[in-house]
């Protein structure tokens, strides 16, 4: 729902892992054949994520975020990493996804999307 404004939520710990689904269109295969994440996956001003601790509270493993999305990868980065790039991290529970959160702030310029990608790791690596 673009157009909203989110404040940073200090109750979200610095080491909280934020999970982002990565469709095939955002997977870039490097020269060695390894899957990397395009910066395009991290450029939304209102970037949707799953908050891992909320999923854990509900007994859901991280991979549950892509349960309905075959062939997707799943990326994780920390709230601290997002904040280091001047992003706000906020809770935004949805009826269909209680663990939904938002990483809010401008990302299209200054290489912010790529820097978010740099700090992300694969939780579920896509296979070519």
């Amino acid at each position, binding site marked *: 729902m673009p157009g909203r404004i989110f404040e940073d939520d200090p109750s979200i710990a610095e080491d909280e892992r934020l999970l982002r*689904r990565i469709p095939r269109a*955002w997977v870039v295969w490097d020269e060695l054949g390894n899957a*990397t994440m395009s*910066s*395009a996956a991290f*450029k*939304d001003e209102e970037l949707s994520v799953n908050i891992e601790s909320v999923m854990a509270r509900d007994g859901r493993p991280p991979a549950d975020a892509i349960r309905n999305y075959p062939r997707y990868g799943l990326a994780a980065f920390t709230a601290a990493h997002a904040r280091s790039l001047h992003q706000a991290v906020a809770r935004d529970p949805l009826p269909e996804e209680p663990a939904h959160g938002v990483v809010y702030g401008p990302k299209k310029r200054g290489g912010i999307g790529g820097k978010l990608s740099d700090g992300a790791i694969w939780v579920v690596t896509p296979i070519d």
Partner: protein
Amino acid sequence: MEYVLKRQEPVLLPRKRIYYSRGQAYTIEWQEFDKPLPAWFDPLMQGFVDLLTLPHDWNSYGAGAIDQNMVLSAMNLITGLLGPTSPVPRVVPLSSGGLQLEWHRKGIDLEVVFDRNEQPFFYCRNRVTGEDSEHELPEDSVLLRSIIGKLE
């Protein structure tokens, strides 16, 4: 026997390629002087066509279709900058309906971004030194061509 030498003036020839993606066919037509297509041509055009056939919600976060005008804008700009032996960029969709072209080679990350309601620009980063910069297009097309040349 008497030979006659006549200089043939170069003529523009109509060319056409058809690309298939997700059960749809797209035809690309243009005119150019007779010459072989560069190696990047087909994979690049296939990348563009693959964006045009992305279904609604292709990223699972509610993204809509990619703007055909953005694709045409990117197609026209980049084909004028690539040389015969340029490496092919990856064509990547944006949630906003735009797209970006990406190269990750020789320690350089290069992204050319075409987005709705924005002037195209490119972002370049040296992965070794960490230096990065951003430039507007088409103003800095010469610089972009030069950087692409270094990726070969």
